[in-house]
């Protein structure tokens, strides 16, 4: 299974996302923001980092990169897309996910090993987990506070589109402790935490992050 990882100028965790794909058993495909197309990959990861230095707004400029047009079109046709941290910001700016990510309420960058509860174990990126499973995955962000109008948040909750929620503390002030959301069809997921940093006991707090990447391999087969 070929999983594309898009590098924008300023992307940082692209290498780590590629490693996670490889450890999960997939074939990572490096995609460049200025490429014409997605090289026929089966799924796409938008990695973490500071694309375009977070200028204007985090993810704002990357969301308007030429390659993102292909991502949006194919996502509407069912391509699984995972946006991690800056990638989540890009997905919101690109209109593929609702809401927006803003400055952490305590105004600091915060890197922490964070407890999470998986509330949707049936999206393209979470089938390896069980409903309600608690995992530990690093968060590291300065603009990770998820916000939306109350009515929109109610609708998100009502439609069960919260994928992952912070437990044991909220690291950035996100509304309703939301750590990740999904599109209506469950194929596009945005996550603030970094699963690609929890794939080896040697370098991470757990191997819980691998589940996101193994999930999509089965999703791709099933599609």
């Amino acid at each position, binding site marked *: 299974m070929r999983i594309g990882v898009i590098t924008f*100028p*300023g992307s*940082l*965790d692209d*290498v*780590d996302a590629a*490693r996670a794909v490889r450890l999960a058993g997939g074939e990572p495909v490096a995609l460049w923001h200025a490429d014409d197309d997605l090289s026929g990959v089966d799924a796409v990861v938008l990695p*973490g*980092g*500071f694309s*375009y*230095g*977070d*200028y204007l707004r985090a993810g704002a400029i990357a969301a308007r990169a030429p390659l993102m047009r292909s991502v949006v079109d194919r996502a509407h046709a069912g391509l699984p897309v995972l946006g991690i941290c800056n990638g989540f910001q890009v997905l919101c700016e690109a209109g593929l996910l609702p809401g927006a990510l803003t400055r*952490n*309420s*305590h105004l*600091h*960058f*915060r*890197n*922490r*090993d*964070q*407890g999470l509860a998986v509330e949707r174990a049936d999206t393209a990126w979470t089938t390896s987990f069980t409903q309600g*499973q*608690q*995992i*530990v995955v*690093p968060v*590291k962000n*300065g603009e990770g506070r998820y916000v939306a109008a109350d009515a929109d948040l109610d609708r998100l909750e009502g439609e069960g589109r919260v994928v992952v929620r*912070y*437990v*044991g*503390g*909220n*690291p*950035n*002030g996100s509304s309703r*402790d939301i750590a990740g959301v999904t599109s209506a069809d469950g194929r596009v997921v945005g996550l603030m935490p*970094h699963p*690609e*940093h929890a*794939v*080896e006991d*040697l*370098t*991470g*707090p*757990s191997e819980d992050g691998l589940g996101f990447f193994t999930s999509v391999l089965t999703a791709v087969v099933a599609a």
Partner: protein
Amino acid sequence: MTADVTTERVDDGPADHAARVMPQLDTVSHAAVSPDDEQPYAELGLRADEYARIREILGRRPTTAELAMYSVMWSEHCSYKSSKVHLRRFADLPESDALLVGMGENAGVVDVGEGWAVTFKVESHNHPSYVEPYQGAATGVGGIVRDILTMGARPVAVMDSLRFGRADAPDTARVLPGVVAGVGGYGNCLGLPNIGGELLFDDCYAGNPLVNALCVGVLRHEDLQLAKAEGTGNKVVLFGARTGGDGIGGVSVLASETFDAEGPAKRPAVQVGDPFTEKLLIEACLEIFAAGLVTGIQDLGGAGISCATSELAAAGSGGMAIDLDAVPLRDSTLTPAEILMSESQERMCAIVEPGKVADFLAVCRKWDVLATVIGEVTDGDRLTIDWHGERIVDVPPRTVALEGPRYERPMARPADLDALQADAPPSSSADLRADWLAVVSSPDGADKTWVTEQYDRYVRGNTVLAQPEDAGVVRIDESSNLGIALSLDGNARYARLDPYTGAQLNLAEAYRNVAVSGARPLAVTNCLNFGSPEEPEVMWQFAEAVRGLADGCRELGLPVTGGNVSLYNQTGDVAINPTPVIGVLGVHADVRRRVPTGWRADGETVLLLGETRPEFGGSAWAAVVHAHLGGLPPRLDLAAERALGELLVGLAADGGVSSAHDLADGGLAQALTESSLRYGVGARLTVDGDPTAALFGESVARVVVTTSDPAAVRAAAEAAGVPVTELGTTGGDALVLDGLLELPLAELREAWTATLPALFGSPEVAVGTVPAGTVPTS
């Protein structure tokens, strides 16, 4: 200076636009015929004899631009004029097989095996951080990262060693949060994990905070790049950010300034960093290196273009011609002298064969990095710079870059040192439990999570150990598991009491911290922070510290790969304590064998390796509980450190210990606190002998380990000649020292973790925040 002035209107706009005054350009030919023109050499930081020497070198008065170049390159910061004669000791150390590039280059490079090399260095950015904490710290990180990049390496990690005035001082509240945010803001955006460092407080740093930043990079041997300009006709290419008015005179003025009581008298424009541009620069450079497109490369740091061009030319065949008009500017009002002195960030200078220039520019275009040919390597031995078709610089580059002034400043042992050393510290605690809590909750001893949470430790996915571990450990080869370990240590109280021994004690601590993780120590870097070299007592402290560090390295068999000297850390008459910060790099043959500091399991045996003596001079306990600094620092024992280090590396390789934590500031009390709170595992212990010495003494060469096979550890220790004392067993939710005290972990954690948030503010966003290091049960 007499000059015709011409007036030029900027545009045809409203009358209140100011007219600009443009003085006549001071060219080489004009300087040759106007020898009596007055020049502001003193304002630029040059002495009269130095100015006279420049005139002698050139055979005429220097032009304005040449004067600017000499003033920045002959400043203390760039020329090391007060410290050179002493730093020679490092060059005199025995040759090391591991050293691929020694002192004198941008950073030292060591062979770590399997065809891999590592380059690392620590540098200061002290004065700018006092003036503008965020940008001072940020650009400090940016600068050291470029030094590593320019050696041909991919930067892979950073560390920071920070010192501020008293934690509760109002100015600390101004400076500390900005510095931490700047270190994090720049390093995080570059994608470099922060793997460790120091945070300490002392009144002596109140007007002179210390910000020392370390960067480490990895390269294959064959990818090494050097900073030399060779090959007549090769092009000189300036790339990265545009040049603006940042930090003009930063090295010549700010770095050599002692602040008076009201703060810095001059405020040159502080350098402002853009980490996004530097990230692009890193990626562009690595592609350029991989494609073999440069024959030499230098980063632009202090003294900007003056430094890069003169150093490249001086290290190469000697000749270079620059067209200054070609330099892309952010501010078109800059004069040529200002362009030469500008310290705008995120710029590099490469030497490129003509046939490879197109490819070089193409890589830069891909990464949206501005790149411009500004000159070429020439025959002969002059550096010439032209502006608007006129020659404004014509100098021998070696005189600018390498043959700067060399002072032998007067030295005098501090008059108060005898009395200070005779003032023995207290030696008996009236309340062990209260003193323990005071030491570990003091700002120096307290949990540093408030700071370290602002740093990304995970990016690149190769961080094996980071703060609060004793050493930062990074994997450099995923298939072989080769790794490196780094520690930065700089106890200034010891150095104040005895700079010669103090510097060696810092070396010993960094060496021990690396060995504790299971890595074999290999090489040394240093950042020497001292007061004004114009004070004989400070100069004596500096010379003694350098002598001590050199002697210590000789005995431990370690090369000094390079480092940094920061002088003039002084406010009025009060110099900072001598603060020699030592960095030691070690190698993990198999990084999976690394040993962490925290206790994870119940029922393991706690052993103390090493010998404890009643030594409290310069100790954290004496400072915190008794506000005392006096006596002698702990007795150095490098032979014991070597034996202990070998033992620890062997134990790691065999898997004989589950944790190892060195004893340093705060002695056993501090070490037990940190090891038990890491994962919430207590212990039941028996501590024999004088309890004050046992808990708070700071004897060297000691480590606490836990093991499920104490007999094997004992045997190994005995074979190594390292004393072993059994302390007890892990388990429970308290630290129980039979007959002495009992500390429930909850109470200990509260005392240890509350200090920094209470001082610097940490609004939590939800109830029940996960404490660092604990693993929530699922």
